[in-house]
Structures are given as structure tokens and as C-alpha cells.
């Protein structure tokens, strides 16, 4: 990926190179975007003091406010602005990322922007890289500092985020991404898919080296591949408490598209790293930095009844599709579950873990079209959300933590099932 022109690279090199690349990939660029550079400067001022030397930073934003607008035929190029120095401590080169194509959906948009930022970091040979892909209004200078500092000064290769959340936020992370990552790769990360990350130069080089190498089929999604790559490459991983993260309201009509866009790259990464995760047993917590904030009070209620209805509708109509992916015992348990009254509706953790594993296996074996497979998990996911929401209705933070821990252990216990089916899909089918 040729993201920075040669004259621009030479210009930065003449200025002494760059220590750090910071990408601000606001999913919804707004009028406040002009405040990005001051925020980055505020975050890095502290860092350059600790470094006790002059820091040179390249900032890449996707809001189009830095430098002239990108011309359409040359959309991959970053548009330069004049270096912005404040004397001896900090020099900032700011650029604007090209606008994404109108047809791009949110997840590929983030991946594309990620790749652009990592490519710039690789070309400049920076020591570290920080990427913020959360909504800009929730981000504070501390976020950038906490993501970059462990990579720059403490020798960590990947700094994953840890957010303060309501009990009904980050549900895909709680139900699939985090426990799956923990069971597969043995590291207890709250958000293995960020989207905000801090990376060392070493991990950055590896990520882009793999990306530019011979690919087998689909292109790597950096957001999904960074954490597994760090674990399987023997690199050091940690977490930083960032605070409260705001998200746009859930688009229920496009939930299946979201699931397909997120789970597809995760399952692909599972396939790529199969040799690595099959040998990993158990899990360990990773070092954490910063302190957790107290979550604001939960507001609003969830319409659990409608989710259970969606699950029951799926159970009535998708048996033929699920029958190609899930073993008969799982189908039987789902059938029993769909007949339970609302107050008793609980999806057992081991059942949910096996469902996710079977879908990952079906994705690998291409049992049916991958898009069909990923979209057909939606009613099951809604069933899990309904079950979880009913369980934690009156629960406090400690109980929720314990609930998620139980689910994660179910994933770990079910890993033997996954490994058996992964190795002998024809023979092992209970």
C-alpha cells in the first residue's frame, strides 16, 4: 500500500524521521474534528517529557480537516500539511486520510483506514503506533497516552483497550470475541478487536509484513489479526483502562451484517492461526495499566420478549440451515430452549460456546456459503442476549464480572470439543 508519497517521506526523514504514528479514525467525523491535533499534542506533550528528548509524531486523521482535500483520482495519497513544531519537545506532521468509498460498510472502512496508518508507520520505521477508532467525542488525551506509553516506554508490543461499560454494552465482545480469544490464545483480553490499539514497531512490521505477503484467499483484517498475531508471535501484550466508550445506537435491522462483518475476519484468523492455538491450554490475565472508571448508571430497558421471539422464529425456520452446521444434540437443546417460557429462558454457557465453535468450524469447512452461515447465527445471538439480559437484570458489577467469567470458562472447557472437531470433522460429530 503506497500511502505516503516519496517526497513527503524524504521531508520527514530530513526532519529526523518519526518516533510515532497516531491514527485518529473517527467512525463519524464531525465538526469537532479540528480539535484532534490539540488533543494529540496534549497527550504527547507528557510523553515527550518522559522521553526527555524531542519527539516527532505523524498524525493521520480521517476527517479531512488536515491539509487540502484529497483529489479523487489519487485517493490513496495522504495530503500533507506544514509541520507543526512547538520548539524543542514535539514536532507534529499532520495528514488527512482519503475519504472512504461510498459503498464501504463501517467495518471494512475501519480496516482500510487501519491499513493506511500501519503502512505509514512501517515506511517510516516508527517505534510505536497508536490508533483510535472509537467515536471522537468519548476520546480524551489520556486515551492516546495510555495506548502509546506502554509500547514506547515499557516494551509492550500490543496495548489493547479496556473500557468502562454498561452491562448491556459490548455484548458481542462479551459473548464471543473476548471468551473466544481467551480460550484460543490463552490471554484474557476484554477487547481483542480493539478497536483502539497501541502497537510497537516490531508488531507493526510483522502486521504489515504478513499483509503484503502471499495471501491465501481473503485479505487480512488488521483489527481482527493484531491480537492473535501478537500472541502467536510470542510478543508482549497488555491492557490499558481507557474509560467510558460511547457507541452509536444499535441498528437492529442490520445486525446480521454487523455479525458477518465482525465474525468473518475472526473465523478467518482462527483458520490462519490454527497451528498456534491448538497447542495452547488455559489462560492468563495480561498486565493492566491505568485504573477503571466507575460506570454511569444504566438507563432504559431492553425488549427481551422480542429477542426471544426472534430466536423462536429462527428455531422454527432455520432448522435446515442450522442442521448443516450444528450437530443433532445441539439442535435438540435449541428446540427445548425455544419452548421455555420467557421467565425461564436461559441459554446454557456450554451450549453457546459449542454453537460458536461449530459455526467457526462450518466457516472453515465451507459447509454452506460463508455469508449465509454468518448471517444465520443472528437469531442464536439474539437468544444469547435475551438470556444474558434476563440473568443480569438486577445484577451489580461484581455479579456481571462473575457471569462473564463463567462464560469464559465454558469456552475454555469446550476447547477440547473444538480441537477434536477441527482435526477430525468427519469422525467427531456427536
Amino acid at each position, binding site marked *: 500500500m503506497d500511502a505516503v508519497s516519496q517526497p513527503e517521506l524524504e521531508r520527514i526523514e530530513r526532519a529526523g524521521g518519526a518516533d510515532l504514528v497516531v491514527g485518529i479514525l473517527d467512525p463519524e467525523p464531525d465538526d469537532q474534528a479540528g480539535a484532534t491535533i490539540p488533543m494529540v499534542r496534549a497527550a504527547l506533550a507528557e510523553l515527550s517529557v518522559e522521553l526527555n528528548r524531542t519527539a516527532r509524531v505523524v498524525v493521520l486523521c480521517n476527517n479531512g480537516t488536515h491539509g487540502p482535500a484529497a483529489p479523487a483520482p489519487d485517493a490513496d495519497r495522504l495530503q500533507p500539511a506544514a509541520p507543526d513544531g512547538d520548539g524543542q519537545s514535539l514536532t507534529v506532521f499532520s495528514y488527512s486520510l482519503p475519504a472512504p468509498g461510498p459503498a464501504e460498510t463501517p467495518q471494512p472502512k475501519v480496516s482500510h483506514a487501519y491499513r493506511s496508518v500501519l503502512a505509514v508507520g512501517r515506511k517510516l520505521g516508527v517505534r510505536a503506533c497508536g490508533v483510535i477508532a472509537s467515536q471522537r467525542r468519548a476520546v480524551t488525551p489520556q486515551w492516546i497516552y495510555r495506548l502509546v506509553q506502554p509500547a514506547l516506554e515499557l516494551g509492550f508490543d500490543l496495548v489493547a483497550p479496556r473500557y468502562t461499560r454498561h452491562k*448491556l*454494552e459490548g455484548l458481542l465482545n462479551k459473548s464471543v470475541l473476548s471468551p473466544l480469544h481467551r480460550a484460543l490464545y490463552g490471554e484474557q483480553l476484554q477487547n481483542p*478487536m480493539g478497536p483502539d490499539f497501541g502497537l510497537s514497531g516490531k508488531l507493526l512490521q510483522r502486521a504489515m509484513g504478513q499483509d503484503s505477503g502471499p495471501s491465501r484467499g481473503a485479505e487480512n483484517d488488521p483489527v481482527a489479526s493484531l491480537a492473535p498475531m501478537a500472541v502467536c508471535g510470542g510478543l508482549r501484550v497488555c491492557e490499558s483502562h481507557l474509560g467510558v466508550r460511547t457507541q452509536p445506537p444499535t441498528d*437492529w435491522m442490520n445486525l446480521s451484517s454487523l455479525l458477518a462483518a465482525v465474525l468473518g475476519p475472526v473465523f478467518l484468523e482462527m483458520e490462519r492461526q490454527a497451528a498456534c492455538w491448538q497447542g495452547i491450554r488455559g489462560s492468563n490475565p495480561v498486565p493492566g495499566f491505568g485504573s477503571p472508571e466507575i460506570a454511569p448508571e444504566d438507563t*432504559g*430497558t431492553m425488549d427481551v420478549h422480542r429477542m426471544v421471539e426472534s430466536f423462536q422464529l429462527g428455531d422454527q*425456520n432455520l432448522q435446515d440451515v442450522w442442521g448443516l452446521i450444528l450437530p443433532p444434540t445441539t439442535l435438540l437443546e435449541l428446540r427445548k430452549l425455544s419452548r421455555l417460557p420467557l421467565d425461564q429462558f436461559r441459554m446454557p454457557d456450554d451450549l453457546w460456546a459449542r454453537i460458536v465453535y461449530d459455526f467457526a468450524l462450518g466457516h472453515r469447512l465451507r459447509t454452506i456459503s460463508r455469508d449465509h452461515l454468518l448471517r444465520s447465527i443472528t437469531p442464536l445471538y439474539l437468544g444469547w442476549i435475551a438470556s444474558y439480559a434476563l440473568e443480569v437484570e438486577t445484577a451489580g458489577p461484581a455479579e456481571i464480572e462473575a457471569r462473564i467469567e463463567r462464560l469464559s470458562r465454558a469456552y475454555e472447557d469446550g476447547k477440547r470439543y473444538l480441537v477434536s472437531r477441527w482435526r477430525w470433522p468427519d469422525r467427531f460429530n456427536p
Partner: protein
Amino acid sequence: MWDQVGQALNQSMNRMLSQMASLLPGVVALIAALLVSTLVAWVLAAILRRSLTSIDFDRRVAQWGFSALAEWSPSKSPTRLVTRAVAWTAMLIGFLIGISAFDVALTSQFVIRLFAYLPNVLAAVVVLAAGSIVAGFLARSVLIGAVNMNLQYARLLSAGVKWLVTVLAVAMALEHLSIGGGIIRLAFGILFGGIVLALALAVGLGSKELVSRSLDREASKTSSQNMQEPVGHL
């Protein structure tokens, strides 16, 4: 007079017997060809069945996206379908060889016509197979999409799409086989047009209020959920 009648009958009997005798080698050859072809078909079918079973052909066919093939197969087993098709083809070839023992000119004409028709048959089979695959894929897409949109009549929609595409494929296949000609075209036009018109009328007139109420309800559900539910997925 009785002598003359007896003589005529004898002559007729002789002619019949001589004609039968002249046919006999051909019949024997036909029976022999059929017996040999049956034996060959049985051996071929047995070998094929064993090979396909060993590679778990039935499951692989479903994996490759040809699950509709199982529905059309005897006992829902594509292995049986393939083995039976091969066996019947072997027996048909044996029958044609046996027929050729009767009259060379007649057989060659028959075979020439058969081979001239073969491309049409192959094209029809390809159209049917492609139609079946497309119908299955679209039906599954519609089913999953409709279930995810919480539509109660998801299965009905899916079946409708499947039958529309299947009817289209069958009509095209019959066109290739030159069966029915204008009647098929006319029947297909009436059927397809009728279905589309019925759907348009149902949505446009008969179910106008129902559809608008349903859409309103869905929209209000979604917007109210967005406002009230503190739910996030990532």
C-alpha cells in the same frame, strides 16, 4: 376345397415360422446384449457405490452447495442417484447394441437421431441443474434475511422464490427439449405473470393497510429500541 385351405394355412404357417426363425438370432442377440449390459451395469454400480460411499459423497454434495440434488434423489441419497444413472445408461447402451442386431439401417438412423438430440438433452440438464442451485441459494438467502427481519412468513417467501426460479428453469429446459413448444411458453407466461400480478395486487391493494401497519410497527419498534435500549455490540 379343404385341401386348398389346409395348404394355404400351411404356407402361412411356414412363412410365419421362417420369419420368426429369421428374427430369432436378433432376439437372442438382444437378450444376450441385455444380459451382458445388465451384468456390466451391476458391476459398475457396485464399484461406483463403494467408491462414493468411501468418500462420503452424500455429505460432500451438500457441502458443495448441491443440497437440492439430495431432494431429487431416491432415498435422498445422491450416491444412489449417480449409481442408478450410470447403471441405466449402461443398460441403454446394451439395448441399442442389441437392437442393432435386427436391422443395421434402422438402427443407424435411430442412433443418428438420438445423437442429434443429445446436445438438447445436455443443455436441458445443465439448465435444470443451474436452476436448482440458483433456486436453493436464493431461497436460503431469502429465508435467512426474512428470519433476521423478524418476518413470520419467512418460509413462505423462501418457498415462493424457490418455486419461481424452479418453474423458470423447468420452462427453459422444456424449451431446449422442444417439448410443448408454444403451450409451455404460454403456460409459463400466464403462470409467472399471474404470480407477479397477484403479489402486486396483494401488496398494492388488498394488503395495503396491513403492510403499512406492519411497516409502521417495525419502524416504531426499531426507533423506540434505539432510544430506550442501552445496548451495544462491539
